[in-house]
């Protein structure tokens, strides 16, 4: 609504930074003036804050403040690069905290952007998250066997690209896609069946619920036992996992048509299937997409978890479980990154389809 909401003064905490040590070198504290690099970064951050009033337009302000944010993130990176210890140096962390708070403002400024600008928010947020991760793991010297820094993960990603691609083919292209389609299809079909034949529903639904209520970790070994080590058992796990959410959402969606809309169909003497196709399914679409979206992430988890319980020697789950034990956490996280990226793309595609198919729904019409 109003574009000129005032900025919160929180980022000003960084003004404390010059008073505190920004690093330790051989047992002696280092202060801001002693490190030209850190000083320069601090000056840029502060400058961005002070010059804020002089620029016009929210985009210009966002760019200016972003420079300040980048400087705040750069400071610890530079100091680590010089081989200084940061763990007990509050100065640099205060500066960084200021940067994070400043980023919040930037995010608020770019939030209203349209078109390609819509990606700016999540991208900045994600980049900042990754940068923080890098800085914190290295700044506090977290052992790589616990949590490797993103730079190491990236390196592992590049070094193991061929393996990861094979895993992707095995897990996503073979298991996930098939299992997802069958599982969602079955959930949907059974929901319709349960809706159509209430007697059947009374018998089938509790059993369906019961079957779907069995946890993945219990199902996976059984499916491996029944369907063998290859993708079939993974797809079976996914089918069982995705069935229930789809069922529940479809049922909720089918009951979401309004009474007067149903009455209209009745007055036309429209039969069950017509009413279903012309009224109840369209009005169920928001719920259907809800189920599809939740399932898209479940399917991926299901496949990976199932691969923990026995696979041929390929697959994301195989990679993760074996590399964890070998303490190659960087490869583990590289695999996780691939999984996360895949899941997000799948989800994003569904969200896009939803926007297309249900543009009439109030949730897209108006804020």
């Amino acid at each position, binding site marked *: 609504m109003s574009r000129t909401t005032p900025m919160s003064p929180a980022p000003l905490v960084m003004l404390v930074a010059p008073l505190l040590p920004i690093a330790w070198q051989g047992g002696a504290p280092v202060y801001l003036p002693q490190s030209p690099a850190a000083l320069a970064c601090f000056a840029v951050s502060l400058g961005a804050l002070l010059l804020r009033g002089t620029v016009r337009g929210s985009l210009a302000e966002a760019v200016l403040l972003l420079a300040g944010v980048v400087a705040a993130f750069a400071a610890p990176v530079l100091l680590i690069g010089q081989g200084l210890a940061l763990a007990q140096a509050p100065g640099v962390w205060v500066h960084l905290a200021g940067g994070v708070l400043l980023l919040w403002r930037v995010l608020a400024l770019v939030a209203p952007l349209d078109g390609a600008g819509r990606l700016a928010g999540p991208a900045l947020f994600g980049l900042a998250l990754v940068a923080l991760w890098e800085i914190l793991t290295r700044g506090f010297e977290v052992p790589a066997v616990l949590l490797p820094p993103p730079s190491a993960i990236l390196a592992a990603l590049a070094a193991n690209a061929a393996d990861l691609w094979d895993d992707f083919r095995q897990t996503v292209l073979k298991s996930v896609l098939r299992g997802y389609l069958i599982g969602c299809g079955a959930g949907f079909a059974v929901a319709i069946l349960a809706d159509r034949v209430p007697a059947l529903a009374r018998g089938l639904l509790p059993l369906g619920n019961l079957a779907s209520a069995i*946890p993945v*970790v219990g199902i996976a070994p059984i499916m491996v036992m029944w369907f063998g080590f290859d993708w079939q058992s993974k797809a079976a796990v996914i089918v069982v996992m995705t069935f229930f959410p789809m069922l529940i959402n479809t049922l*909720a969606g089918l009951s979401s048509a309004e009474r*007067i809309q149903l009455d209209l169909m009745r007055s036309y003497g429209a039969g069950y299937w017509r009413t279903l196709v012309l009224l109840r399914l369209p009005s169920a679409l928001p719920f259907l997409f809800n189920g599809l979206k939740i399932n898209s992430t479940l399917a991926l988890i299901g496949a990976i978890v199932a691969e923990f319980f026995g696979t041929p020697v390929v697959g994301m789950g195989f990679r993760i479980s074996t590399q964890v034990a070998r303490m190659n956490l960087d490869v583990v996280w590289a695999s996780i990154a691939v999984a996360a990226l895949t899941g997000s793309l799948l989800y994003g595609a569904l969200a896009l389809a939803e926007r297309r198919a249900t543009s009439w729904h109030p949730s897209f019409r108006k804020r």
Partner: protein
Amino acid sequence: MALAVLVLWYGGALWLNGPQAAEALTRSGTGWGTADLIRQAFAMKRPVLPTPDQVAVDLWNSLTGHPVTSIRNLLYHTAVTAGSALTGFAMGVVLGVALAAGIVQVRTLESSLLPWIIASQTIPILAIAPMIVVILGNMGFTGLLPKAVISMYLCFFPITVGMVKGLRSADPLALDLMRTYSATTRQTFRLLRLPAALPFLFASLKIAVAASVVGAIVGELPTGGQAGLGARLLSGSYYGQTVQIWSALVMSAVLSVALVAAVGAAERLFVRAGRGGAR
């Protein structure tokens, strides 16, 4: 219906256990007939698929053979799992609703946070569950909390997704009404968005409460041979005690179904004014 399932089950048991049963019979020498095969397949010590009566007997023994507080009583393990599942579910509801509220109300959050929440769910929990257990363990949290955190991680997401949709589903005219009253964001939330989101919320809660049981069980796996249905599954699996696995599975399914039913009951309680709408 139930009969059909039982028949199918026995048939499946015969089908899956048959080869091994036949082998066992052959091993014991002497000839054998179909009746022997069936008897053998339904009475194996380590069946591929135990028969319903085997599971029922094992369930009965493990439920009644020991006092309820004994670690050999399955009910005790079910209670342990239910405890962490419910704790995780409660935490997940709070987190899920809070995130959804944030996403709907604060534009900055919507565009930047949502994609990352989604990404977080594509991380396989089984991979990070041990890390959570280890890290929380070092911070001095052991026992229930790590498991509850894993439950929460699994169940907040359906709630967030459903609630975001639900909170946005309020009738535009009804929202306009709130605007004319210049209702605060909070009032609009409490008086309009929340009630309008209830159908979505409850659909999500049912999924989430089932997920919370899965989470609790997953949380019990890395901690290994400790109490809970997950531990039973695990040790059953290590020692090839198929019947014990199935008993634990049945109990976990019963637990989930009971929890889902409880959510359903709550739904009927809260969403009494059904849909009527205009005539």
